[in-house]
């Protein structure tokens, strides 16, 4: 008997390019575009900081202290004569760098823990989730403040505290996705090959839960920058003379009545960075997770 084993249709299915579709969804939302552009500017500023200003962020010039905005100092100077614009530009490096580092680390750790909790399930998963519930029970800011206060005020400790308070959201997210993925047949197939749980988690589970995690990362970035600035403002984060936006608002606050520019401009920077990250995060969610479009 002649057996026809050849596929009769070997041509592949044609689908519109995913990339083009994503770009279209991204473009049609003007707010996302604005957020993206502002953010891009911030990143350019952060990267090109030394090229953009003739001043140094930490060099003191007592003769020119608390000068109002002028042609040579667009945003004025502070109480020891440092150019506020220069410090904001260097502060962008710090805030963006720290914000991204903290959220990416929290996302990474949270995803791994969540993937394990979801895939393993059982008692192990329950214990992990209860620990996360304990952390989630506190308002993020309060817990971050308590942690930094306990660890001692410094930039590193503030980052650590923010990372810790950010992890549970990622664990929850990754776990709930992992619970779905582990029921997929390709996971069962991997088990029948004799592949280890670790292999399955890192090769199958994590890659399949990563999309919502990326969305969450982009949404959390604005929040993390806000938290860093808040801790700085409360004197718990970066310590002077580090040019951190929140810390600058904190010192500038004392001079607010007479020298309004000192606290105002770093405040505007915090606002712009936070809002643009949030806009971009929302837009990215709409692009990558069309189900969630309201």
């Amino acid at each position, binding site marked *: 008997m002649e057996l026809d*084993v050849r596929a009769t249709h070997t041509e592949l299915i044609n689908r519109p390019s995913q990339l083009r579709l994503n770009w279209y969804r991204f473009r049609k939302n003007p707010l996302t575009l604005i957020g993206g552009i502002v953010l891009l500017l911030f990143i350019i500023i952060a990267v090109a900081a030394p090229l953009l200003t003739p001043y140094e962020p930490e060099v003191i010039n007592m003769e020119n202290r608390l000068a109002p905005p002028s042609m040579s100092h667009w945003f004025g100077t502070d109480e020891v004569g440092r150019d506020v614009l220069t410090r904001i530009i260097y502060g962008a490096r710090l805030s963006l760098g720290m914000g991204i580092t903290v959220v990416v680390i929290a996302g990474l750790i949270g995803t791994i823990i969540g993937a394990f909790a979801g895939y393993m399930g059982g008692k192990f998963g329950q214990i992990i989730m209860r620990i996360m519930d304990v952390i989630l029970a506190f308002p993020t800011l309060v817990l971050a403040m308590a942690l930094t206060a306990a660890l001692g005020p410094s930039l590193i400790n503030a980052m650590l505290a923010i990372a810790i308070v950010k992890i549970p959201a990622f664990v929850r997210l990754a776990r709930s996705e992992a619970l779905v993925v582990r029921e997929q047949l390709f996971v069962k197939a991997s088990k029948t090959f004799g592949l280890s749980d670790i292999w399955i988690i890192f090769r199958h589970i994590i890659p399949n839960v990563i999309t919502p995690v990326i969305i969450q990362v982009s949404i959390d970035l604005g929040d993390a920058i806000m938290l860093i600035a808040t801790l700085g403002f409360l004197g718990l984060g970066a310590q002077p003379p580090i040019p951190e936006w929140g810390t600058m608002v904190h010192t500038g606050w004392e001079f607010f009545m007479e020298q309004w520019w000192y606290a105002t401009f770093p405040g505007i920077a915090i606002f712009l960075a936070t809002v643009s990250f949030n806009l971009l995060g929302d837009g990215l969610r709409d692009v990558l997770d069309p189900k969630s479009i309201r």
Partner: protein
Amino acid sequence: MLYVNKLIKTFEDLHAVNDVSFQIEKGESYGLVGESGSGKSTIGNMIIGLLDPTSGNIRLHGKNLWKGKKFIRPYPGQMQIVFQDPQSSLDSRFRIRDIVTEPFKAFSRKEQKQKMTNINMAEIMQRVGLHEEHLDRYPHEFSGGQRQRIAIARAIITNPEFIILDEPTSALDVSVQAQILNLLKYLQEELDLTYLFISHDMSVIRYMSDKIGVLYQGKLIEEGETEMIFKNPKQDYTKKLFASLPQLSSQGS
């Protein structure tokens, strides 16, 4: 070759599989038939190591596959399974090449390397009716039947001697079903495979199996050579199953 002896699986108070015994000889195609919920897939899952039996034993070449709750895996790739739903059985993040060679990942690095150099991917793909250039594509670019061919390629790549086919065609279009069934028959002959074919579809079972076992509510109620059972079913339930088949009547003129 494969002995299933007094196999029982209970979920709380539900007897999913109740005292089932049968054996499969080398080169044979054994069909397990029954309606959904009759325990056919549960049996397949216990043989392949996804589900531990409540009691009873399964032996492959005389060796017990289960010691209590622990699955004693035979040589990796000796047994393979092809699942029903080709949408969910291929990871959409993997290239076809990585999907098909995934079973090798269970071997040590050295063995993996050796196997990868020895294997002729073009030949494997051709065997299942696909092309070598499909290897660098992703699953979403393929239709259901093509995806099932990929799943079959993944099953035969380890040179298995025994493959469990868990309703491999019930998620496919009728026209594609026939192609896949023919492919499976061809591969069985070509590669000297032994099949456990699980299905609820009597016509598919008849076409594929040398011997069949009829499952009803977790019990094996009838067993025998396919043609014998089809010609002379002893149990009422089996007769009812046959009655569900569409009949072709020939009217003489």
